């Protein structure tokens, strides 16, 4: 057997406590992120089994999924949400876990605050009861979402039991076209692979495009790995990664930093290591993307028209059901379709670079009258940066308001629900039926496409509006 290892092998293998015969690996978890929605039953399980949290200092709790995004200083109105928030607070206190609850200065979406405070580090294993935990793979960590039973396992034993996934590498070479963002790269890959194309695999992203990408862009790409069915995705850490994490609250300092660096610098796929599957795309084939259906694989270049059922591989009935839900027809153009809502936020595109991109287009323009816009920063830190950089003034001048941080309309557990039948251009990650509210219709896109829709009131190619900036 070859001794050459992939990045994924290196991190996974070094965390295997033991291999169960004809079964999974027992995998040690370095960082466990906890939020209010998928944890209460796990804490209840600890109580029932009469066990505690094994490593409270490896566990971090934040409230984000069901929190309101306005008037966060007031008591939460919905009694069920309030109850979950209280449960998280009490459970964290009882078990000595740091808790960044609603109103805490470090509060925000779990996958946004993790990297912000240096909890996310290269070579770590990171889990959370949320499928977009894959975000943290941007740092060369193995990060993935788990179910509540597994949350309980990690709380009580700091381990989970999983068979080692297969390995896939996705290479994209060349330079991205004008107006193409990391979100478009991810939606492009998913449209090629479909939502199940990477099921059973852990993905490594490699090639020029990812090397040249900012850390925030890498987070957007890794975040969406789950939407092609992959357990997670990762990118080898490099100078950019180390630069980003250096000096953050939870990153090692002094001699510990040097020691960590010595380890982190080994975290790359060995030359000659093999993958179970390898795919290569060309950057020049990617244009700004938009989805037209009810799963993230139903995406296309914004200038294209909706495919005909006969031209697709999947089931025709399912495809027609999906278009029926969206009230779209085969062969139609997406450009020009009127929209009602714009949502910028979520752990996919709720960081400062996303707000900079959005602002770059709305600057000097006005929000369209037919559009309701929800601008939701991923964390208080992002919110503060929006204000400090003067983006808020530009946004307000253009008729937009900024809300307070949280998951918001990404999953619509709070009041931020798109009404039935309405169209929302969203920078989040899922366009499933009803994801943004019962009956809502979601078009997934980049912050640039969202901004272009926000000021024109319809699906618009952002490159048209960016020409004068170029």
């Amino acid at each position, binding site marked *: 057997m070859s001794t050459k290892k992939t990045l994924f092998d290196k991190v996974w293998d*070094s965390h295997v*406590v*033991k291999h*169960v*015969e*004809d*079964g*999974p690996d*027992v995998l*040690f978890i*370095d960082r466990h992120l906890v939020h209010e*929605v*998928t944890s*209460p*039953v796990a804490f*209840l*399980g600890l109580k029932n*089994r009469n066990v505690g949290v*094994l490593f409270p200092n490896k566990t971090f709790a934040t409230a984000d*999924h*069901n929190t309101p995004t306005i008037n966060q200083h007031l008591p939460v109105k*919905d009694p*069920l949400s309030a*109850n979950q928030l209280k*449960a998280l607070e009490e459970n964290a206190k009882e078990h000595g876990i740091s808790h960044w609850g609603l109103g805490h200065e470090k509060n925000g979406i779990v996958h946004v605050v993790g990297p912000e405070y240096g909890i996310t580090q290269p*070579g770590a294993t990171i889990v959370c*009861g*949320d*499928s977009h935990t894959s975000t943290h793979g941007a740092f060369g960590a193995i990060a993935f979402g*788990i*179910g*509540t*039973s*597994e949350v309980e*396992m990690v709380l*009580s*034993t*700091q*381990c989970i*039991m999983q068979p080692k996934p297969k390995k896939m590498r996705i290479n994209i070479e060349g330079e991205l076209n004008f107006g193409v963002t990391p979100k478009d790269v991810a939606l492009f890959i998913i449209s090629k692979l479909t*939502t*199940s194309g990477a*099921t*059973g695999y852990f993905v490594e992203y490699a090639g020029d495009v990812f090397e040249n990408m900012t850390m925030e862009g890498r987070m957007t790409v890794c975040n969406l790995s789950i939407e092609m*069915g992959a*357990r997670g995705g990762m990118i080898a850490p490099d100078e950019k990664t180390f630069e980003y994490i250096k000096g953050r609250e939870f990153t090692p300092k002094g001699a510990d930093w040097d020691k960590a660096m010595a380890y982190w610098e080994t975290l790359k796929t060995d030359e000659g290591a093999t993958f179970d599957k390898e795919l290569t795309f060309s950057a020049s084939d990617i244009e700004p993307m938009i989805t037209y259906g009810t*799963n993230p694989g139903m995406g296309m270049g914004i200038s294209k028209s909706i495919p005909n059922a006969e031209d697709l591989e*999947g*089931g025709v009935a*399912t495809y027609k*059901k999906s278009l029926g839900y969206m009230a779209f027809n085969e062969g139609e153009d997406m450009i020009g379709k009127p929209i009602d809502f714009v949502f910028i936020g979520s752990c996919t595109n709720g960081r400062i670079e996303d707000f900079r991109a959005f602002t770059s287009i709305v600057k000097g323009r006005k929000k369209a009258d037919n559009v309701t816009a929800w601008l939701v920063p991923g964390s208080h830190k992002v919110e503060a940066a929006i204000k400090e950089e003067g983006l808020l003034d530009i946004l307000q001048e253009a008729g937009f308001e900024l809300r307070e941080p949280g998951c918001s309309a990404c*999953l619509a*557990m709070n009041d931020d629900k798109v009404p039935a039948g309405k169209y929302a251009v969203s920078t989040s990650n*899922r366009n*499933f*039926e*009803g*994801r943004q509210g*019962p*009956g809502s219709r979601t078009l997934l896109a980049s912050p640039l496409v969202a901004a272009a829709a926000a000021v024109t009131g319809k699906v618009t190619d952002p490159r048209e509006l960016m020409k004068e900036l170029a």
Partner: protein
Amino acid sequence: MAYDKFEILKSTAVPLPIENVDTDQIIPARFLKATERKGFGDNLFRDWRYNGDDTPKSDFVLNNPTYSGKILVGGKNFGSGSSREHAAWAVYDYGFRCVISSFFADIFKGNCLNIGVLPVQVSPEFSEKIFAEIAADPNTEIEVNLPNQTVTILKTGEQESFEINGYKKQNMLNGFDDIDYLNNIKGDITEFAKELPL
């Protein structure tokens, strides 16, 4: 939470021949606000099952008295999307002990195995056969035999075997879960932790 042992399940089945059924359909996010694992079956497929005013949608299969049973047969790529274990809880709480599909999303499959719902992956052809038999006769019984790892359409005798790793199989047969296993090796885990770089 331990669950009932799973050995041989003989039951009629409920067909849901839709592809890419995601966990937001299985249980929409607004029903995830409980702090206890109770009553999720009531909201299984909520928005496909009920209108906005909570009246049942008569064309949805769970509202059709012709179909019932402890086996749910779904289309390809069943359980994609969110990691919410609530989706598996809802399936279990509604009364299903087994889901058959030609392809499962990873996390959903793992969640099912952890709570005592057996995910059975069959070939696309066999899945089509099952759908066709149920369409022809809703009283068609299916046998899922875990010890032998086979699924059989009883009327026609057609059979296929399915895969499950030996460890998970033992767990399902005994009603054990991973938490029991891990709690028993805690000593090894704390020793291991001392050696880690991070």
